[in-house]
């Protein structure tokens, strides 16, 4: 009422003033003109859409392929990355997840078999395409370049520009860098699109770069940060240290004294300038030690900081050339401000409003989401696990970051759900995976990474608390379900403890399958100490090992055929049941021959053997970074204390549906054909899974 009165008075004042034949000044003039322009543009857009609509409808009818009657008008798929079946069942039994129980009672609940290996990029690629990894070509986070033995991203190829037109110190690129999705096969949303069924695909892993289809997509895992990496944080510090971070971080100097410090934020390389120097943004830091606060000054802008508190997003604009900028989003935390001063910058997310590279389909979809829900994280692995692992940030900051990202995702999801009249909506929520990775040490007694004393007792229940949040989310989704909706809830894999790391390369060295160059000790990263002329097997990536095969690897020595088969057999025999004598436990349950595990044209790109670790075991940090030196088994003392890259049989995911299903023991490969069936489509010919709901026996729950 107060607002109405104020507005009325103001309107009267303005109407009266209009008689003075003056205008209201540029600011307000913009508001008026802008408003008229918006309304005009909207009407034009709507008019054009309406005019074109009959032709589009006719075109659709002409192109329409025959399909049976759809069982559902909307299929809503909620994915919780890494939600573990055992934990879910336990909490459901305890009544802590009432909405999951309600959904299970209404439709069904089951464990969901996962892929070999049980790892996010592989499992979600199988979910999307309905095929095994041998057909979709994603076997791990990392692949190796057989010419150099160096690791490379398995899901996307980000090329560089080779040809430039040079003018003085400037270089004008003659082409765009190639960005290519390495996942093969066809996702079910493309099949749906071919039948003109809309899909909104939000943050499903391995969707970068985005594909074109009838629908909208916001990319996820493997979207790089602005530096082009999978997430590099920056630590500006007055502390002198030559040590580099083992994972994803950079130390940068913070110069100054007293309460005033300076630094330079490192941006991407400027390919328009000769020598590709990195772009930089200088900043000043002014401390208020008494109040534990600080001000960060960039240009004329001042950004407030508080010690130990993760800031909001800070927009960083790097100047490429005058008039051209690339922007990113980072969150900051002043980690110390006593004698020494340290300032943390999270990896710089590609800004969704004006992304520096394609991160969504259509290209303006990320802009649309930014306008709708505000700034959000775009980095594939949006939660900075590395900074916590390196003890740069703390559990509280990580929790804040994870929950904020989850909130952004939820807003994205409900925005899309509200707009979806018919079609498919898929959203993957990652926080379950991240929370279990980083807080498992709180939940498991005797975990080597458990904090000494109760570091922050609040996190003892972090995992359970997060599962309950998932439950609440499902409750909100169920409240919005319409009569002809089908809701599917799934996870790509479960979770387990990561107490002991296994350095497979160290084991291969001990067993004589891997040899080091003379005078080296194997402590150099990325297998730089390995003597390839004598090495028969090596491990790169997280899930298995490769044989050094002649003709395939640059310096291969194992002959394809009988020798390879014999070596694989020998390794499988030795690795299956490999014991950790120190703990008197089995470290590896079984090694799997991928030639037998996978089917399809790309299985040759897979590691030759997959390793099915036991509960509590995983590849060690050293082995993952290509170090050969060290013990074969060692305690994991990092915050990253839970994991799932183990024997896939030990970590099934979950599957819930708002309608009963006809098949027992569903597998993640079954989801794509099931979704097609729900829209009245036959399983696509390339798909391998089974439809879990047979149209003939489909009955709506409660009917």
């Amino acid at each position, binding site marked *: 009422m107060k*607002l109405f009165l104020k*507005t009325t008075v*103001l*309107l009267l*004042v*303005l109407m*009266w*003033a209009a*008689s*003075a*034949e*003056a*205008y*209201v*000044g*540029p*600011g*307000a*003039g*913009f*508001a*008026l*003109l*802008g*408003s008229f322009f*918006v*309304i005009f*543009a*909207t*009407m034009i*857009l*709507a008019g054009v*859409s*309406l005019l*074109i*609509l009959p032709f*589009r409808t006719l075109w659709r009818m002409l192109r329409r392929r025959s399909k049976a009657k759809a069982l559902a008008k909307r299929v809503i798929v909620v994915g919780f990355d890494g939600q573990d079946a055992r934990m879910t069942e336990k909490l459901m039994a305890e009544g802590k997840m009432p909405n999951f129980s309600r959904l299970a009672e209404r439709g069904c609940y089951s464990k969901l078999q996962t892929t070999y290996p049980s790892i996010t990029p592989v499992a979600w690629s199988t979910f999307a395409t309905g095929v095994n990894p041998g057909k979709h070509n994603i076997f791990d986070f990392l692949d190796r370049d057989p010419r150099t033995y160096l690791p490379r991203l398995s899901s996307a190829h980000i090329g560089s520009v080779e040809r430039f037109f040079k003018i003085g110190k400037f270089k004008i690129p003659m082409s765009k860098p190639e960005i290519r999705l390495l996942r093969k096969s066809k996702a079910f949303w493309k099949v749906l699109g071919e039948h003109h069924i*809309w899909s909104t695909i939000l943050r499903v892993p391995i969707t970068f770069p985005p594909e074109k289809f009838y629908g*909208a997509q916001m990319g996820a895992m493997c979207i790089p940060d602005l530096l082009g990496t999978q997430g590099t944080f920056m630590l500006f510090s007055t502390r002198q240290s030559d040590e580099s971070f083992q994972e994803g971080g950079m130390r940068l100097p913070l110069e100054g004294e007293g309460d005033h410090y300076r630094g330079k934020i490192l941006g991407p390389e400027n390919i328009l300038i000769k020598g590709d120097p990195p772009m930089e943004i200088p900043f000043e830091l002014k401390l208020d030690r008494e109040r534990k606060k600080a001000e960060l000054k960039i240009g*004329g*802008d001042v950004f407030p900081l508080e010690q130990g508190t993760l800031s909001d997003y800070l927009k960083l604009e790097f100047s490429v050339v005058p008039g051209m900028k690339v922007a990113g989003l980072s969150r900051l935390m002043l980690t110390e401000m006593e004698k020494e001063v340290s300032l943390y910058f999270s990896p710089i997310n590609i800004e969704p409003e004006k992304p520096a590279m394609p991160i969504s389909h*259509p290209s*303006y*979809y990320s*802009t*649309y989401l*930014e*306008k*709708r829900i*505000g700034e959000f994280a775009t980095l594939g692995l949006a939660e900075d696990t590395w900074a916590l692992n390196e003890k740069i940030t703390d559990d509280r900051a990580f929790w804040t970051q994870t929950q904020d990202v989850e909130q952004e995702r939820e807003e994205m999801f409900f925005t899309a759900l509200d*707009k979806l*009249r018919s079609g498919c909506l898929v959203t993957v929520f990652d926080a379950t995976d991240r929370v279990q990775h980083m807080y498992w040490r709180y939940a498991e007694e005797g975990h080597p990474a458990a904090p000494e004393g109760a570091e922050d007792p609040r996190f003892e229940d972090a995992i359970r608390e997060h599962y309950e949040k998932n439950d609440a989310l499902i409750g909100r989704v169920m409240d919005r379900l319409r009569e002809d909706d089908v809701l599917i809830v799934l996870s790509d894999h479960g979770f387990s403890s990561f107490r002991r790391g296994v350095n497979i390369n160290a084991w291969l060295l001990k067993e004589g399958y891997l040899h080091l160059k003379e005078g080296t000790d194997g402590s150099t990263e990325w297998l730089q100490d390995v003597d390839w002329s004598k090495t028969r097997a090596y491990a790169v990536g997280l899930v298995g090992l490769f044989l050094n095969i002649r003709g395939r690897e640059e310096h291969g020595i194992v002959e394809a055929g009988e020798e390879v088969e014999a070596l694989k057999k020998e390794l499988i025999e030795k690795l299956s049941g490999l014991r950790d004598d120190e703990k008197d436990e089995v470290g590896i349950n079984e090694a799997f021959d991928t030639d037998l595990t996978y089917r399809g044209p790309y299985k040759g790109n897979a590691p030759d053997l997959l390793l099915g670790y036991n509960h509590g075991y995983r590849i060690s940090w050293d082995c993952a970074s290509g170090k050969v030196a060290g013990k074969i088994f060692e305690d994991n003392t990092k915050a990253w204390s839970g994991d799932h890259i183990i024997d896939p049989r030990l970590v099934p995911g979950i599957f819930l549906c708002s309608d009963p299903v006809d098949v027992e023991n569903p597998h993640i490969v079954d989801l794509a054909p099931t979704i097609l069936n729900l829209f009245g489509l036959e399983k696509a010919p390339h798909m391998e899974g089974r439809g879990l709901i047979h149209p003939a026996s489909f009955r709506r729950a409660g009917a």
Partner: protein
Amino acid sequence: MEALNSILRPIFDATNALMGDWPVWLVCLIWAIPLSVFALWAFKKFSNQDAISATKDKIYACLFEIRLFNDDIRAILRAQWEILGHVLKYQALSLKPMIWILPPTLLMMVHLHAFYGFRALRPGEEALVIATLKAEVGNELRLELPSGLTAETPGVWAPEMHQMAWRIRADLPGDYLLRFRKGDQEATKTLRVGGRRGRLSPERPGRDFVAQLEWPSEEPFGRASFVQKINVSYPEAVVSFLGLEMQSQWAWMILFFVMTMVIALALKKPMGVEL
């Protein structure tokens, strides 16, 4: 208002005297700069910038939705409806800074209008002089013209409007004072013929606040005066810009409007203003 105008008149007279016969577009540009800076500052200071930004984002989002869901009539209509709501909110958010921007803008505009909206009579040109009176006086009202001006017609009385009108002709350049007599009462009105560009007064207002605001060039008639207002029909000014000539009292204002908009657009980012 009278006091305010008496303060502002010498200021605008002095500044415009400096600009002499400069082209109108240049004068508009010079005045547009401080006004734009002030308006941007006031807009930033007195508006809810976050709310404006958020509302604009919502409008953009709806526009994207129209494009995204262009197969879905309901989605398009819903987005349009939502846009309308957001536009109204955007307007409402702009009202508060408008209150601060409007008074100085208005004062500046009305004073500038006296210089650039009209031109002085040229020798040989005719103009209508209309006196609006408070009561019927009929033939009691006489117009006394100084030498250099000639009455072409006797006063014509329009009883319904309480107006007496004369057609006069300018013979010689100069600043004149027209005298209107009713018995022993007198009212005066300035009139300019030829000379450099200067302040003109197409109307000498009465006590009406809005009229005083609109016509600030002369002091208003007193409460006891028998005259409500006196108008002189000066020709509308001709404004040239980029080879185009436009004869309208509003021509300078259009130019001024465009220039303030362009300057504001150029300065909004450096000044960090969300419009």
